[in-house]
């Protein structure tokens, strides 16, 4: 795109600068309403609960690190970070690999009963059996208190397959055909041609899958239980539990308040947690981004 506009004659460039300026300004405003909340979370996570309810909009005026101290006190937070990072990295790699390979096969023109197979995958998006049968199935194959429960169930996801397949189908067919004539096999074409060509969409899937993995904790709650679950819990679940503990005060009687009196309010704790969990995403994000904002010269590949 950029190359296209750079190639424009100078005259036109001038004429369009008004539209361009508007574009810049609108984007800037959009950016502001999206960034400000992050700033809001940041300053509020460093404020006392009392000042939060009064409104902290620009800078914290009642500085407090209490919420972060609370997070730091969580037992076993170290091992939970290791688990969270492992499930994110391994889970994402597996998901991207499985989904792209499925999408490639499903898009392959020689696949028999193509529609049927594709639909078998698509329908899974709408099938929800409820958590009890799901629990029975998954623990039935021995995934209870097993790290694999974090990654295996998410390996094949119809939504990602659809996105990748749509993308693969936009790759000119001649490319693949010429490779076939050169004698490349199915797996080799996938590896040497499809994967590199689909980098933009794969980068997108990496972001989607990684964010999902990073944020999921309900599987932890159901499948990691009791005495064999040491060092298998992930960060988000521990944070969730901490939050629950701080709202015990709310949901129970006065006795609980006196007994388990955690003095940080759920809101300020939440702010701190969000900041802690969103920050890593925003750090890794730009590295993926360069793939989906940069065009790939199909012509160059052809040549």
């Amino acid at each position, binding site marked *: 795109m950029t190359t296209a506009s750079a190639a424009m004659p100078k005259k036109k460039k001038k004429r369009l600068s008004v539209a361009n300026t508007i574009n810049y300004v609108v984007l800037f405003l959009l950016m502001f309403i999206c960034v400000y909340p992050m700033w809001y979370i940041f300053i509020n996570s460093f404020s006392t609960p009392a000042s939060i309810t009064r409104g902290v909009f620009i800078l914290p005026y009642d500085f407090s690190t209490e919420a972060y101290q609370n997070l730091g006190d969580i037992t076993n937070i170290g091992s939970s970070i290791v688990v969270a990072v492992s499930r994110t990295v391994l889970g994402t790699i597996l998901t991207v690999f499985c989904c792209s390979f499925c999408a490639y096969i499903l898009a392959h023109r020689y696949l028999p009963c193509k529609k049927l197979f594709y639909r078998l995958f698509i329908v899974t998006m709408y099938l929800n059996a409820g958590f009890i049968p799901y629990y029975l199935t998954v623990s039935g194959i021995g995934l209870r208190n097993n790290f694999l429960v974090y990654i295996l169930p998410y390996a094949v996801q119809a939504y990602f397959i659809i996105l990748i397949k749509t993308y693969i189908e936009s790759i000119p067919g001649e490319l693949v055909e010429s490779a076939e004539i050169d004698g490349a096999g199915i797996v080799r074409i996938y590896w040497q041609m499809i994967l590199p060509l689909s980098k933009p969409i794969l980068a997108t899937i990496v972001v989607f899958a990684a964010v999902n993995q990073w944020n999921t904790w309900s599987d932890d*709650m159901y499948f990691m239980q*009791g005495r*064999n679950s040491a060092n298998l819990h992930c960060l988000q679940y521990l944070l969730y539990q901490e939050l629950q503990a701080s709202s015990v005060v709310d949901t129970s009687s006065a006795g609980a308040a006196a*007994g388990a009196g955690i003095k940080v309010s759920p809101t300020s704790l939440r702010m701190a947690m969000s900041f802690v969990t969103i920050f890593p995403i925003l750090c890794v994000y730009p590295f993926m981004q360069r793939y989906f904002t940069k065009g790939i010269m199909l012509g160059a590949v052809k040549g």
Partner: protein
Amino acid sequence: MKKKFAFKLIALALAAATLSSFAACSNGGDTASTGGDTASTGDTSGDGSTDDKFAERVALDVCAFVSQNEQDGRRSDPISKYIEDQLNIDLYLTGVTEADWPNQLATMMAGQDLPDIFLLSNPTEQLSMLLASNSILNLSPYLEEYAPNTMADPGGQLMVTANTQSANSPDGNLYLWGMCKGSWDDGTVPTCGHYIRWDLYKEAGYPTLENFDEDMLDVMEAMVALEPETADGQKTYGMGSWFGAGQGWGEWFFTFGMAPQEGAGLIEATGRVLGVSTVDSTPLETNQLTDKEGYFWRAVKFANKANQRGLFDPDSFTMTSDTYEENLKAGKYMFNYPGWMSVSANQEFAKTEGNEKLFVSLPAIGADAEERFGNMYRGERQYGVNGQTKNPERCVALLDFVSTYDFSRIAYNGLEGTYWNMEDGVPTPTDEYLTITKDEAEATATGVGLYHHFMGYGNGAIDPETNTYMDLYQFSDKAKEATMNPTLQDFIDHYGAETQVDVYRQETETTNSQSFLSFGEPDDEISNYVNEINAYVGTTVFTAVAATSDEEFQKIQDEMITTLQNNYHVDEVFEYFYNEAVAQADDVAVLSEMSNEMLGIE
């Protein structure tokens, strides 16, 4: 190069995945062998002395409503060690929350993965499910031998009797084990009360306060006039609530805002159509959801009137409870229902030097009864033992052990010698204890507060042996001395009493909770109706509070009542529960007698 790197990465990932699955498999192996061990223990433990009975060390899995801080449940705090040593067990104690436990429990029931001892977050419904799947143990045969403390304790006997009555057991056997018996407070900070800023009431010259529905509004107005702004410049209101985000706590505010303070309880299990007198456990004659003069509608009307007079914080409709609590602490409201929030507001006020601000719970206004001195005769939380457990005896022994007065005191205050000592046979807190913050770090280090809902008695229960409250941090004489302030003294003097507790005893005829009714699972249709009534009332009643005139309020009220009668079968539900309540009269009489004997009431 790049491709190779990617390939290596994937290979590495797969290797790691395989490895971790192996690791998990070996874990599984461990479980199996532990299971085997415990099984043999179950067989060998027979008759003999206590030491003999518990000779073999076994592992018990427990899911309870306690602090969550160890991943696999094995705790390192001194109280847990103390339990383990006393009972010769390895205790794997997982903390669960009321919000998530119902679904976790359901999956465990379905998968037959239940722990040895577990919480029933909704005993009425869960007990019948557990019985149907054979997953809950009949505790009766074990009581004599393995629960000696409970069987010798009047409070324990009361709990066992109540839980073997027909409402709580289909066949007269004991399935539910009640914890947190007695009271959650000493009578001065009831869970739901009418708390007002006594300092401002005093400043206003003690205006007339003979009835709740009208006078209280005038009093709030007078107080707001005296303090129109908080210390940091926020506008003050007479009262507020928290109906935001998922309807907040729904109709909690109206269920508990009025009835207990006038000697009645609206039973939530009945969709609050049925009210029960806390004086003698008789059901009220009218359907509370259709009776405009009933407790529920009076509470709604009160909030609406406050709203019409500008005394009700308009943010109430959108805020959540934690925001409300912060507002309360900032001094934004003059009047409040929840006791624990009043306590935390008072703590916040007390941080200021020479503070006189104070929320004090008023005695019943214009009524001759109130539910002030709590009496959780069945226990506030119910636990069950897995029907398939390998160690039923040890489970009962554990339940019995934590149900004693002694353990409850330890659960609140730590082991003897840490924060309290026996002085002349009276447990006395150390000076240091009264200054600590009870938080999670404290629970991990000393175990204080960790077992908050897995112990026999509530913090306001009195140990008959030492005549002291369980919670020395809040209710010991020393603690009370420390929190006394001029405003509280003024309150006591105003009523011409010796202590705060005396005020309530002398001002109101009946202050003890005497409500001994509980309901088993109703038949299918009724329980559907109850769910639907709850959903309807919990989402619609707020529009009545927001009404801008009495006519509009009337209109909404009439509409709701008609809808409830026509679409939601309220009358049918009321009749069902009313008859159930009447049928329990004999059971109630038994419990009432036991309770009176225990508390020394004539």
